[in-house]
């Protein structure tokens, strides 16, 4: 069968519109931010790499509420973390709580003055032996070669087994549509960052150690805004600044006895001038 030039162009045009061009067209129509697949990935030229990423939280560097809020805002704003008024539906990647809540079992009868009231920053520990990864039935949460415990939001079925397994309460579920609005008409994502994907309802999310920034050669947003209070680096590199702190200062990790090997260490403080 022969087809003339006009018919050929017609068919080619339609195919392009629905095929290659079609996806651009549809994306353009429903675009409300970046798709996860469009994010830069690790190993790209110019990215930061490590054998095992870790962090030290130096509490002595957080002098007031403002120091802490700046860090939390930096993270939650760039990652489109929704704000739900109902504490039951809260989504948080980095947050604070008291000493007793951060380090259960380490509280004592007579505690150092001021320690109990101190707001300790918490985030995903990116454990070396992550319980969440062990239980996930779809590998939607997995450990990368550089130690970061990552989420695939498109594979998560929302069974919340990882939330039951994580001993650190680091995981949040989207009980409602984070792209929606509250009763007063305010969007849950207060200010959309078009550079980062939003999530859908029914999936679990958490801190990713800013993989998207590492790929561009940048420090995690929280560390960048912390004035040295959050030191990010390679735990396996003996010459890293991180290891230097771990060598010279007494640090603790949350719930070490559970054997998950958290990669986040804490300098509790009390000796600011060390």
């Amino acid at each position, binding site marked *: 069968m022969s087809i003339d030039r006009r018919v050929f162009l017609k068919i080619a045009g339609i195919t392009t519109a629905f095929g290659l061009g079609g996806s651009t067209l549809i994306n353009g129509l429903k675009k409300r931010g970046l798709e996860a697949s469009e994010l830069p990935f690790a190993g790209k030229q110019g990215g930061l790499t490590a054998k095992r990423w870790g962090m030290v939280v130096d509490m002595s560097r957080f002098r007031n509420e403002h120091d802490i809020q700046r860090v939390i805002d930096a993270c939650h704003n760039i990652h489109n973390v929704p704000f739900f008024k109902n504490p039951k539906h809260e989504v948080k990647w980095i947050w604070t*709580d008291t000493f007793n*809540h951060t380090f*259960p079992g380490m509280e004592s009868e007579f505690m150092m003055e001021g320690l109990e009231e101190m707001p300790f920053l918490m985030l995903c520990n990116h454990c070396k032996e992550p319980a969440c990864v062990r239980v996930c039935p*779809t590998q939607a949460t997995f450990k990368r070669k550089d130690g970061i415990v990552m989420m695939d939001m498109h594979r998560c*079925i929302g069974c919340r087994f990882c939330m039951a397994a994580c001993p650190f*309460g680091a995981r949040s579920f989207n009980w409602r549509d984070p792209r929606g609005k509250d009763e007063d008409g305010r969007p849950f994502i207060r200010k959309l960052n078009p550079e980062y994907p939003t999530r859908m309802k029914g999936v679990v999310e958490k801190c990713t150690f800013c993989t998207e920034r590492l790929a561009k050669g940048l420090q995690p947003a929280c560390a960048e805004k912390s004035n040295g209070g959050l030191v990010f680096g390679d735990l396996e590199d003996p010459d890293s600044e991180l290891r230097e702190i771990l060598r010279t200062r007494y640090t603790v990790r949350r719930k070490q006895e*559970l054997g998950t090997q958290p990669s986040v260490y804490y300098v509790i403080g009390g000796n600011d001038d060390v």
Partner: protein
Amino acid sequence: MFEKALTGSKRYWIWIFVLLAVIGAGFLAYLKQYEYGLGLTGMSRDVSWGFYIGQFTFMVGIAASGVMLVLPYYLHHYKKFGRLVILGEFLAISAVIMCMLFIFVDLGQPKRVMNVMLHPTLNSVMFWDMVVLMGYLVLNVIIGWTVLGSERKGTPPPGWIKPLIYLSIAWAPSIHTVTAFLYAGLPGRHFWLSAIMAARFLSSAFASGPALLIILALIIRKLTKFDPGKEAIQSLGKIVTYFMLTSVFFLGLEFFTAFYSNIPSHMASFKYLYAGLDGHNQLVPLMWISTILAVVSIVLLINPKFRENEKILALASVAVFFSLWIDKGFGLVIGGFIPNMFEGVTEYWPTQPEMMISMGVWAIGLLVLTVLYKIAITVKEEVEL
């Protein structure tokens, strides 16, 4: 054989339509949840599993308990269970279907449920739970249907069914063991981190399942011409008695370890459930009802004089069923999340839509059970008369 389910008395059809109405209401509630998200339920960041997963856990036990009829009948040739065995197998089918539905309605992204099969993850207990539940469902459908079909034709069951029956006997404990492992292997959940969890699950299953079967058998005798047999019911009564005692004993072991060791994290959930923690005590009345029902049932069951009276046995069975339903369908799951990972307390109570959806799932289970029992009983009536 299915045509047997399509003819029935007026009472049968009224019951079917009542169930369909409840299923419809549950479905509407589910559509609402599907639209809004699981925020429609009482679950939260801290109590991230609730009534759905509790019901799932309880129903796995009911499903597994079918083996309490199959094993004595096929391995020990206990002929008295001959008339009951099909009821146990069909109960297992309906219970497994409910299990799967309770998991399904609990998913945040139900459309992606196939991901569990598309990305099989051998290190996830949930993957294995799916495998054993599916397998158990298939086994019971094949065995139940084939054996009943042979009975109808008046021939002995085909030889190839025997190995499947033996497999199903080994398979039944596995479904509840794996379900217990969903909980018992999690670091930091002290209430669940107990080596005895699977044993507790099995003992409570082998009490609550046969208790339900006693109730069902008595109802069937009342409503139909089919009599499951007085002696068979009495044997079930003994099974319920021993396993209820074992179940309460195992719970006692948990209490001893927690409270004699005096380790705060091990005591906290028990305190929350039975006395309240930091002024939060929403589940306390429920847990005490469960305790009282357990004690009452044991008093009634342990004395043969009481147990041999079918009215009292029925009462005791109802007490066992609800005691364990509260303990496992509610306390066990919620208790594991309280206190939370920060030793704070966020309480949980199911919402109205959550209850509607659960009722819908229950109604689907009852519908499947009704239809299967209708078929089985009609076949048996025809064979006998």
